[in-house]
């Protein structure tokens, strides 16, 4: 599944799940969670100069969960939403999944919900694009 799934899942459900996964565990922020606009830089291929294509809203977090029995699990998230609360929650989910701790199946369920949203949006977008398709080979045959 694509990494964007959790950002498309219902926000409150992601926050609630992350809060539940953090119960009884110490949450350490390895980096200060951030939200804001990220200046997106691309490199043109000839002279390899950098240029700025625009800004995208971003939230990011990097955390460690400390469990008295299971030890430490680290996770991170960068979302295309200026929402550091959601990014932190996604990072907690990432940590649990990466460590294989209980609760990973709940994260998978939310990711599947996000993937479904993504698939629906992709389907709508594909249908719109399909209506704009132009077959240039047929134009060539008419000219002949």
């Amino acid at each position, binding site marked *: 599944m694509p990494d964007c799934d959790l950002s498309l899942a219902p926000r409150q459900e992601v*926050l609630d799940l*992350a*809060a539940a996964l*953090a119960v009884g565990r110490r*949450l*350490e*922020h*390895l*980096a*200060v*969670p951030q939200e804001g606009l990220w200046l997106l830089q691309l490199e043109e291929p000839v002279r390899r100069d950098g240029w700025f294509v625009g800004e995208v809203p971003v939230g990011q977090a*990097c955390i460690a969960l400390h469990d008295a029995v299971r030890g430490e699990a680290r996770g991170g998230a960068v979302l295309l939403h200026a929402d*550091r*609360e959601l990014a*932190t*929650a996604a990072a*907690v989910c990432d940590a649990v999944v990466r460590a294989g701790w209980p609760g990973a199946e709940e994260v998978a369920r939310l990711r599947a919900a996000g993937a479904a949203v993504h698939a629906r949006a992709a389907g709508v977008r594909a249908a719109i694009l399909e209506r704009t398709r132009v077959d240039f080979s047929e134009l060539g045959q008419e000219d002949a």
Partner: protein
Amino acid sequence: MIDLDHPWTADGQRLAFRAVLEAWSRPGTVADVAAWSGGSRARTAVLAGMCDAATTLHDAHGLLGDGDRSRLGARSVVAGSAAFILADGTRPPDGLAPACGSLLAPEQGATLVLDCQAVGEGPALRLRGPGIESSAELRVLGIDARWWTARAAWCAFPLGVDLILCDARRIACIPRTVAVEA
């Protein structure tokens, strides 16, 4: 979910930055940043207010713990190319070679954050220069005298380094433009 305390909160970082700015404007004045340090030494609040992923940092004496180092986000580099250098002021600056900038880019001179025993107490320094009316007295306890010798060698206006002296809760700034008499 986000339970960060000062100095890692946005407000804490802004207020610490403001305190540093005020201290820069009036060299030799002592500012108390304990309210925004979250129990850490003042150096952590200063660095949290000044550093981010776009800056570079050299921790000369390993004063930062892994957690604080990671949260600062600044890239670790050698002293000669660091925008900020954190050092233990009670130890001599042996072999330290900070960036002093160039005539075309004097702003590339490093900012040294020196951790001392006490700022506002101890032997007096006499400061003269921009931001000071005639002269000012700054008391600093527990700073190795060789820092002043090294600073004199590094600073040849407009080149040089800027100092932020820190103790557990207070800071004082000495820009490169200020003459120091120990």
